[in-house]
């Protein structure tokens, strides 16, 4: 089956309000919850990384769906300094398994290596978006304790990319999966899963 072109959009923004942790958390939660609902319907996948009031979000999917999601984000006044970094057509999705994966410096339980990575992400995303996306993908797979397949071999649809063990971990997760994938990968708490083993 021929896969349609997958468009990928990366933007960077800051939260307009002062960086009160609780407010930002609520904002991030709101973005992620809404995004996951809407994105699953529109066949959009991606990742949102939040670093002390700065956001990097990747949206990928059919052109019109990405356009619609991004337009909605542009109308949101809670963002400021919103900057479209990259909009490209690709063969495959980079975050095919996630309606909207999430990284946040505010969330507890990030391994130290990810903290360093997140701190450098805003600059990286602007200077070399492709490398930033690659690193995000790796960090995500690492967190989910699944091996990251090569992008070229990555399925474009919503098939679960992980090995059977990882799927079991997902199935044990409290939140119901969307299209067979977890819609809040961080809610699965893979770190806890790992530490208990």
């Amino acid at each position, binding site marked *: 089956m021929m896969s349609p072109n997958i*468009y990928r*959009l990366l933007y960077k923004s800051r939260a307009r309000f002062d960086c009160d942790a609780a407010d930002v958390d609520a904002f991030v939660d709101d973005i992620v919850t809404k995004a996951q609902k809407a994105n699953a319907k529109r066949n959009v996948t991606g990742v949102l990384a939040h670093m002390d009031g700065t956001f990097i979000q990747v949206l990928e999917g059919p*052109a019109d769906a*990405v*356009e619609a999601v*991004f*337009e909605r984000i*542009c*109308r949101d*006044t809670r963002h*400021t300094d*919103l900057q*479209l970094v990259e*909009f490209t*057509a690709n063969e495959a999705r980079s975050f095919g398994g996630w309606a909207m994966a999430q990284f946040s410096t505010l969330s507890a339980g990030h391994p130290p290596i990810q903290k360093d990575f997140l701190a450098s992400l805003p600059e990286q995303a602007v200077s070399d978006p492709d490398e930033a996306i690659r690193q995000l993908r790796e960090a995500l797979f690492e967190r989910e304790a699944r091996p990251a397949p090569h992008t070229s071999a990555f399925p474009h649809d919503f098939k679960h990319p992980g090995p059977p063990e990882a799927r079991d971990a997902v199935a044990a997760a409290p939140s119901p999966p969307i299209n067979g994938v977890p819609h809040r990968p961080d809610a699965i708490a893979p770190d806890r899963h790992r530490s208990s083993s």
Partner: protein
Amino acid sequence: MGGCAQTEQLGGCAQTEKNRSPITGQGIAGGPSMPGMLPSWLAKIGTRQMIHFFVHDHELPLVLLSLVLCVVGTLVTVRLWRIARDTTDALRTRLEWCFLAGVTGGASIWATHFIAMLGHQHAGVAGFDPALTILSVVVAILGLAVSFALATSTASHLALVLGGTGIGLSIAAMHYMGMAAYEVPGEVTWNLPIVVLSIVLCVAISIAAAAAMRDLKKRLKIPVAVGALVAATVALHFTGMAAFSVPHTHPMAGPQGSDQRDAIALGVVLCALIVIGMGFCGGAISSRGRARSERALRRQALIDPLTELPNRRKFHQHLKERFHGQDKGFAMLSVDLDRFKTINDTMGHPFGDKLLQRVGGRLKSLLGDQAFCARLGGDEFAILIDRQGSLEDLKTTAKLIIEIISRSYVINAQVADIGASIGIAVAPEHGHDPDTLVQNADIALYGAKDAGRGRVCVFEDGMVTAAQSRKSLEIDLRRALARKEFELCFQPLYDPQSSDYNGAEALLRWRHHERGVVSPADFIPLAEELGLIVPIGEWVLEEACREAASWPSHMRVAVNVSAVQMMSGKFRKTVFDTLARTGLPPERLELEITETTLLCDDVAIFDMLTAFRAAGISIALDDFGTGYSSLTSLHRYPINRIKIDRSFIGRSDSDESARNIVRAITNLADVLSLNVTAEGIERTSQSDFVQQCGRLSIQGYLYGRPGSIGELPASFQPESPKNGIAA
């Protein structure tokens, strides 16, 4: 059932043997004279007899059923009649509505008559003549259709009377033909005066109905017309029945069983209801469609279809209301998109339209109900916003609007970036009336754009003066060509190698009758912005070439060309046409362009310059050394001369680095085989310095100030011999 008794009571006594006629009705025409008969029939129909007639002659349920049918059918018919009246469509459409009204009216009147007749027990109906029955319906339908067409043709009295009469006659014709279709055992007799009376009554009431349709108020039209037509039908039927009598020799013959009669009644009612129902649907569909299209039209008049925001007309309406409404204070934000025109031109108009839709969507979602936002046209939007906080709050809102509009747009998988400038005027401080407020918001917007776009600018009184002086300069500039206020002067170009002049640069002067000589620095940017540079440039080129054509053959003329002029699309043709017209050889024309022109990096410009060079025209790059001074430009474009900017020459006496730059440029030109002109030579020291640098042309006060044609040195005289010039 006292059929005989009733016959005697109602008709029998008034009938003479002579006009007793069979049902064919021919006898009616030959009845006794009316005048003699009227008093006698009036005497015969007393109140008691009428009561008897209704209560005993007619079976009440069927009479009521026929009445209901009559009212419903007439209501639908009259509604269709009104649609036919009101339609503004073609004649054909009106006639079609009249026909539909005729069909509905004819069917309902016929059914009314038929049901009533079934309930008319004394008639002792044995059967119907099918041909005549059908004919009666057809006559009713066609008669009514023609009558409606007549009544709706014009608003004249004639149309009203003819139409009304037609309606009455159609009802009467239907009734009496229907009566003739009854097969009644025995001979039927008619009371002619009553027949005539019934027709006159029916016609008169029908005319009244037509008058009601024409003259009454909207609300009364339909009820009155329906009432009148029902009255006409009822009056005709019952009066007409009073004129009808059967001899009592054949009481109740025929197969009129009650069940069979009810079955026929049911069938007729159903058929009539179907016809009426279809007429109703036709009318309803049309009315609803018209209502919808009226709503749509009203909406279209006030809403911009692209963004679905209120349009300019609605905006002005709303603004007026706000001023009338003693509003506590509000602000107008005049919003103009930056770079929209470029995107619209390069990415296509459908893309531009989508972009405008997105901008409208963002404004709507940002402002919501808190502000009134309209699209005034093109890429112009206007916002009316309540003044709740300080002016700073207003500015913050405006900046937020700019921020949201300036975020990237992804449309059809393409990214577009635009910006916005906003001018703010606050009511009532900056305008007590709509026009002033709008004007001042626009002045502030102009200020915002002038300050570098993407900005918010609040109106200030000082802006009016600036805007006015700009406006008046604009008006004067527009008139300057026609008033022949432009002059051309020439500054000679000196060639040190031959120690003689080898040409001159044409310079534009504007001598205004009040302003005096206006500096090109003041009016050229305005002329470029207004597009006036194109006709002005054409004039300059024409004059310069014409003048230079009279100079000795080694003299060239340099003419400045603006980027706007070059991109106007017809510049190439203008140049070649002008050369052909003035007879100046192309080798003697030099076009001076600026780096701005080349920055457009347009294929068309490259092609044009190449064509000029191929024809022998020189291309000089003006003010070299100041702007980008891109070596790529020198390399890529067919340029054959550079002009060193006067600022370097001016500093060359005292500034070693300025001297170095001049040396570098001349070296560069030497390597690239380009000619060089040094501008602004005022002193001998400067002249000596540049001559050391290399082979170049010299231009400056030292060798001649810009002057009118008459002031040019003698070398420019036609066929003048070469003269040495003492520097």
